[in-house]
């Protein structure tokens, strides 16, 4: 048995900052010191604290090393693993205590988290089925097949109050009961892993860190509705997730946990992967089903809903990755356990991908009903450089912006909708005072214009027109009546678009118009961008009193727009200035401003 275990994060975040190399180096160092039989090195999934990657954790001490570089590996091996001296300088600062180390659960990032969907991410080796089994993996499938009837499984999921984590928030148990009630010679279970919201990566992390949980849950869903075939639709841009899923499927088949006659109960179930080419609309359920069938990824009319007529015209249950990741725990621990977490109408936990202007960029999982303030200020560690919070964007291109006055709102499906945003898949982008809300709305519209499939006119043409109006406003050519036009067009699109993508595309515009109308008006009436983002509305000036005449700005200006003599205040020629900001970056005296 190994006396020590080294976990190195192999999620996409840490992999992109070279964690693979750390693993190779670590193994080589262990061999050099003859410790390879005593210390086990494991590549895990995401720990969540991506801002501090690459992350290396050593057990049994529980030492959490952050931002580890290649040069640090020898020190960790020689000091910690050979001599038992924890390398203090590499520890995540919050875990450092006088003469010991604090457990991760005591750090502000982890203390308020409750990991259900992410429970095995960063704990087990996702490429070894035995490790998943060690943490009760496939026990839920065993329990469902041998102790529960399909109806009891559905009742348990229903009673748990679990709602779809992909964005819509439809009760999962209800969806299953519809599909179960429809008689057909063939039914399907599908998993939506076409995560497309900018900034959201919880599904990827679950697939990378705990792929078996999704397979197990799909098999349970298959048993519940009477399906023996499953499809996972995952985007091809997630190579690590696809790779580990393939390994997981092969291992599960080898163990007989997928395939024929599982646990000798006569239940057959198998799963196939379908790779998506990265179209946002394919995350929409009916477009996704089309895409699995090899057709163009365009939405179908609903009804009929997939539970009635889904994949290949057969009853189909389609759930999101995070939804599935909750299922085995619900079956094992019971509906009451799950329903005890969260708010009245939204049970359990939700994973959020924290991004934007926040210190602890990464993945957090909190009980429903946690306030936005707790997530941003406590778990997220606040906003860098002491800047002020301006808004949080939830739900990606389908969601809206939450202003500071709603920071104490308890986050759940219904509360977010009531303030004009939505849960979406759980992207949470934080913006500070330097963000222009009109520009943010324009950014999301640009995304939906690109991603609109073109099948229905309100979305195809409407989002394009919305984007044009926003372009005009940010270019300083907007008029007051544009704001009314925007609003009217938004409501038109919401009411008439065919699928969820179009119906929610105007949300970023509507919510910023509602909460930040003064910024729109500043752009239109005063022709100014208060946050200093929209280039056309900005001019750069040098404050003569502060300028020391060091000439640095004149030298970095790429277009020679700055002139002046040494030790005398310089001036910017506004006609030549291209507003690149190079001068502001270089000025040591804070003498250059934009307004």
């Amino acid at each position, binding site marked *: *048995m190994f006396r020590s275990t080294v976990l190195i994060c192999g999620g996409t975040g840490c992999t992109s900052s070279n964690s693979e190399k750390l693993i190779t180096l670590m193994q080589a160092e262990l061999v050099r010191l003859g410790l390879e039989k005593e210390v*086990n090195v494991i590549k895990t999934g995401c720990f969540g604290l991506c801002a501090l990657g690459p992350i290396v954790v050593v*057990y049994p001490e529980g030492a959490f090393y952050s931002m580890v570089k290649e040069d640090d590996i020898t020190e960790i091996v020689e000091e910690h693993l050979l001599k038992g001296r924890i390398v203090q300088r590499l520890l995540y600062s919050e875990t450092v205590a006088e003469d010991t180390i604090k*457990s991760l659960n005591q750090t502000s990032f982890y203390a308020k988290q409750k990991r259900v969907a992410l429970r095995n991410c960063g*704990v087990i080796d996702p490429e070894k089925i035995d*490790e998943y089994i*060690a943490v009760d993996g*496939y*026990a839920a499938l065993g329990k469902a097949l041998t102790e529960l009837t399909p109806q009891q499984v559905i009742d348990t999921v229903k009673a748990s109050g679990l709602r779809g984590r992909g964005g819509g928030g439809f009760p999962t148990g209800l969806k299953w009961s519809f599909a179960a009630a429809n008689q057909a010679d063939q039914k399907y279970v599908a998993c939506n892993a076409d995560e497309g919201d900018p900034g959201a990566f919880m599904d990827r992390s679950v697939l990378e860190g705990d792929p078996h949980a999704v397979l197990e849950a799909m098999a349970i869903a298959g048993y519940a509705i009477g399906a023996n075939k499953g499809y996972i639709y995952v985007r091809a841009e997630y190579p690590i997730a696809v790779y580990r899923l393939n390994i997981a499927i092969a291992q599960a088949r080898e163990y007989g946990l997928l395939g024929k006659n599982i646990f000798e109960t006569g239940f057959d179930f198998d799963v196939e992967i379908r790779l998506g080419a990265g179209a946002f609309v394919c995350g929409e359920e009916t477009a996704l089903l089309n895409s699995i069938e090899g057709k163009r990824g365009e939405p179908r009319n609903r009804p009929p809903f997939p539970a009635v007529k889904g994949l290949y015209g057969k009853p189909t249950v389609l759930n999101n990755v995070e939804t599935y990741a909750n299922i085995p725990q619900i079956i094992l621990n019971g509906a009451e356990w799950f329903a005890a977490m969260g708010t009245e109408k939204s049970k359990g936990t939700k994973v959020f991908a924290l991004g934007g202007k926040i210190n602890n960029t990464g993945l957090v999982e909190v009980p429903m009903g946690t306030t936005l303030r707790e997530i941003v200020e406590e778990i997220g560690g606040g906003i860098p450089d002491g800047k002020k919070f301006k808004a949080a964007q939830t739900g990606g291109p389908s969601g809206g912006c939450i202003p500071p006055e709603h920071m104490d709102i308890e986050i759940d499906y219904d509360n977010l909708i009531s303030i004009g945003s939505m849960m979406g898949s759980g992207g949470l982008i934080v913006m500070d005072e330097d963000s222009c809300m009109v520009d943010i709305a324009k950014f999301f519209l640009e995304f939906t214009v690109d991603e609109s499939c073109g099948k229905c006119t309100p979305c195809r043409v409407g989002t394009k027109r919305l984007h044009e109006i926003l372009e005009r406003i940010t270019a300083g050519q907007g008029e007051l009546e544009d704001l009314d036009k925007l609003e009217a067009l938004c409501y038109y699109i919401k009411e008439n678009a065919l699928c969820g993508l179009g119906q929610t595309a105007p949300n970023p515009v509507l919510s910023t118009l509602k909460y930040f109308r003064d910024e729109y008006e500043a752009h239109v009436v005063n022709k100014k961008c208060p946050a200093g983002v929209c280039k056309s509305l900005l001019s750069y000036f040098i404050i003569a009193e502060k300028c020391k005449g060091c000439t640095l700005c004149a030298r970095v200006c790429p277009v020679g727009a700055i002139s002046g003599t040494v030790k005398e205040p310089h001036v910017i020629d506004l006609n030549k200035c291209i507003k690149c900001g190079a001068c502001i970056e270089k000025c040591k005296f804070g003498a250059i401003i934009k307004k």
Partner: protein
Amino acid sequence: MKSLAELKAIKEKTQAAVGMRQDNEDKIRILVGMATCGIAAGARPVLAALVEEVEKRNLHNVSVSQTGCIGVCQYEPVIEVVAPNEEKVTYVKVTAEKAVRIINDHIVNGNVVTEYTIGSVAK
């Protein structure tokens, strides 16, 4: 795999290794002094014996880890047993055989092996 029993067997085989990674404040911790003095005096076989014994007896609530120099180098190899809500016990001049007995008497049966403790040796 054909049955739940087989699933359970795999779980039992692997859960000790995974269990090490879960923070659990109720764990009994055995610390082995592994600075230069400890290693020179033979702490490595002691550590190996402890780890082996813990595994053999399937003790899920015990973690064996290294620590630096405990400060009484003349008594190395030194190990400390830290159980929740109990006073720390320091054993000195430990050998692999003594380590096995410490696990058996102290960790499993709750009887401190007084003759190996620092108190009885220092007298």
